[in-house]
C-alpha cells in the first residue's frame, strides 16, 4: 500500500505530492503502522457492532436478492444467480467498509476528536496519518472479506479453490476506495457533504458495476463509462476468484485500481495539507 502510494524513483519519494518541500514527506512505514495500531486499539472496543454492520447488510442483501430473485432469474453467464451476485457483493462490501472508514471515521478523528492535530504534534507526519487511516480501512476490508468468504463457502456459493484468495483481494481492492474516501474527507466541510459522494459515487457504483447483471448487457457507451468506475474492476477481480475464471485481464483490473489509488491518495494528501497545515 505504502509502495503504491509513494511511487518509485527517489525524487518522487522525497516530494511525492508536489508540495515543493513544504513538508517532510518521506513516508516512514513504522509511523504508518503506529497509526494503524492506534485505530486498532480504539476499534477493539466496538468490534462487535462493527462486524455486525459490515457483514449483516451485504449478507441480508445477498440472500434476499440472490436467492429470492434468483429463483426467477435462473442462470446468468452459465452461473446460478446467487453465485453470480455473491461473487460481486464481496467487492461492494469492501468498498462500503473502506469508504465508511475513511469518510465518517476519518472525518470524526480529524474534526470532532482532533486526533489528527494531536498526532501532528509528534514526529508522525500528516501523510503518514492519512496512510495509516487508509491501511487500517484495508485491514477492516480484510476482516470483512474473510468472514464473508467463510459464510459464502459454507452456503455453497463459492465453487473455485481460488476463492481462498478473496480475503487478500478484499484487502487490495479496499485501497483505492480508502484513498477516494480520503479525497472526499479532505474537501468535506460538514457531515452533509458525504451524502453527495454516497449517492452519486457509492450507490451509483453499487448498481452499475456488474454485481447484479453483466456489464456486457449494457449499451456500448454506458459499458465504457461503467468500466471507468473502480468498483467494476473490483467486482471483476472478486468474481474471477470466486468462480475460478482467471485470465490475463485480472492484471488490467489490478492496474486500473492501482492507478486510482495512486492518483487519489496524492490528491487527498495535497488537499489535506492545504486544509490543515496553515
Amino acid at each position, binding site marked *: 500500500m505504502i509502495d503504491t502510494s509513494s511511487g518509485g524513483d527517489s525524487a518522487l519519494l522525497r516530494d511525492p505530492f508536489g508540495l515543493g518541500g513544504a513538508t517532510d514527506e518521506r513516508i516512514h512505514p513504522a509511523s504508518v503502522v503506529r497509526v494503524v495500531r492506534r485505530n486498532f486499539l480504539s476499534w477493539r472496543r466496538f468490534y462487535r457492532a462493527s462486524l455486525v454492520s459490515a457483514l449483516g447488510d451485504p449478507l441480508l442483501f445477498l440472500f434476499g436478492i440472490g436467492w429470492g430473485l434468483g429463483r426467477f432469474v435462473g442462470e446468468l453467464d452459465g452461473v446460478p444467480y446467487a453465485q453470480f451476485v455473491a461473487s460481486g457483493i464481496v467487492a461492494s462490501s469492501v468498498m462500503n467498509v473502506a469508504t465508511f472508514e475513511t469518510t465518517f471515521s476519518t472525518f470524526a478523528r480529524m474534526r470532532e476528536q482532533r486526533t489528527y492535530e494531536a498526532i501532528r*504534534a509528534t514526529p*508522525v507526519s500528516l501523510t503518514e496519518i492519512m496512510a495509516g487511516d487508509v491501511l487500517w480501512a484495508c485491514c477492516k476490508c480484510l476482516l470483512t472479506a474473510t468472514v464473508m468468504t467463510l459464510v459464502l463457502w459454507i452456503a455453497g456459493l463459492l465453487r473455485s479453490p481460488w476463492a481462498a484468495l478473496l480475503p487478500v483481494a478484499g484487502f487490495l481492492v479496499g485501497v483505492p476506495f480508502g484513498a477516494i474516501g480520503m479525497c472526499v474527507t479532505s474537501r468535506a466541510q460538514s457531515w452533509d457533504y458525504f451524502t453527495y459522494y454516497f449517492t452519486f459515487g457509492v450507490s451509483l457504483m453499487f448498481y452499475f458495476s456488474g454485481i447484479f447483471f453483466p456489464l456486457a448487457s449494457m449499451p456500448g457507451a454506458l459499458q465504457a463509462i461503467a468500466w471507468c468506475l473502480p468498483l467494476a474492476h473490483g467486482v471483476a477481480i472478486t468474481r474471477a476468484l470466486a468462480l475460478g475464471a482467471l485470465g490475463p485481464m485480472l492484471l488490467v483490473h489490478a492496474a486500473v485500481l492501482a492507478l486510482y489509488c495512486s492518483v487519489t491518495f496524492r490528491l487527498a494528501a495535497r488537499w489535506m495539507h492545504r486544509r490543515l497545515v496553515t
Partner: protein
Amino acid sequence: MPVEPQPSAAAGAAAEAEVEVAASAGEAVIAARGVTKRFGEREVVCGIDFAVARRECVGFLGPNGAGKTTTIRMLTCQSPLGGGEIRVFGLPVGPRNERAIKRRIGVVPQDENLDPDLSVLVNLLVYASYFGVPRAEAARRADELLRLFALSDRQDARIDTLSGGMKRRLSIARALINHPDLVVLDEPTTGLDPQARHLVWEKLRELGRRGTTMLLTTHYMEEAAQLCDRVLIVDAGRVIAEGTPRELVRLHAGREVFEVFPPFDDALRERCAPHASRVEQAPDALRFYLDGDLPAEPLFAALAGREFLHRAANLEDVFLRLTRRDLRD
C-alpha cells in the same frame, strides 16, 4: 554555529548528532528572530524576537488574539513559518528538521485533544508509540507520569469521564511521555476552576524544579507571576515588554498602588496626585502608583476618610499600562 544537515537519507541521524553538539554548547533552546505570520490580509505575528535558555520557564502573556498560539504553532512545527527565523535546539524550524524538532518537544494544546476512544493509560502508551518509545519503556514512563499527576486510580477510565482538571493534567503527562527537552504549554489552566488551576501550577512548578525547559502562554497575570522566570508581554503580534515578573512590575508599574473606586472627582485626583509617581484614571478605578522610595504616608493622609485599596503593584498593572493605547482607542 551548527551545520545545516544534508538532505540525504541520513539526514535524521545527522540532525540528531548535530543537536547533541548544539545542546552541549549551551545554545538557547529557542532562538527566534523577526518572526512574522499572516493569514490572508491579516498580520497576526508582526516581527517577534525572543530566546529561551535551558532550564528556563518563559511565559507569553497577552490577551486573546495577540498571536501567542500562532507563534507557538510555528515553533512546534505545526504551522509553517511565515517569515523570520526560529531555531529550536539550534535547528532552523522548517520541513527538513520537522521530525527532529518534534521528537524532542512536548506540546500541551490550548483545547484538549486527548484520544476519546482510548483509556487514560492507553492514551499515554499510544502517544509514546508515535515517538517510537519501546513498549516496555512506555509502560514504565506512563506509570510514573500517572503517579506524578495523581491519575493512577483513573488509568482505565475513559476520557469523557474525567474532570477538566484531570484532562489537563493528562494532557501535560502526555506531553512528557517522550522525555522532551522542551515543553510548550498553550494556556495550561484556561477554563479550570481555582482548585484545579492550583494543582496544575503545583505540577508545573515541580517540572520547573526538575529543570524542564518550558514555554507557556497565558492571559492570567497571576499564572505568569507564579510560574515564569521571565515574561514576554505580547500584544497585537508584537513583544511590548520583557523581563522577570519582578523587573517588569518595578519598571512599568512601580512599587505599590492605591486604588480608589467611583465615584471620584477631580478635586480628589488633584489632592492626591502630587504624592504619587503616576496617576491612572480608568472607568473602574483611579490608581495612584508609587515608585522607588516615595513614601506612602502622604497618600494615606490625603485619602483619609475614603474607602480605598492599598496593594503591591502586579503584572496586571504592567499589562494595563503597556496596552493603555488600545483601551483608549
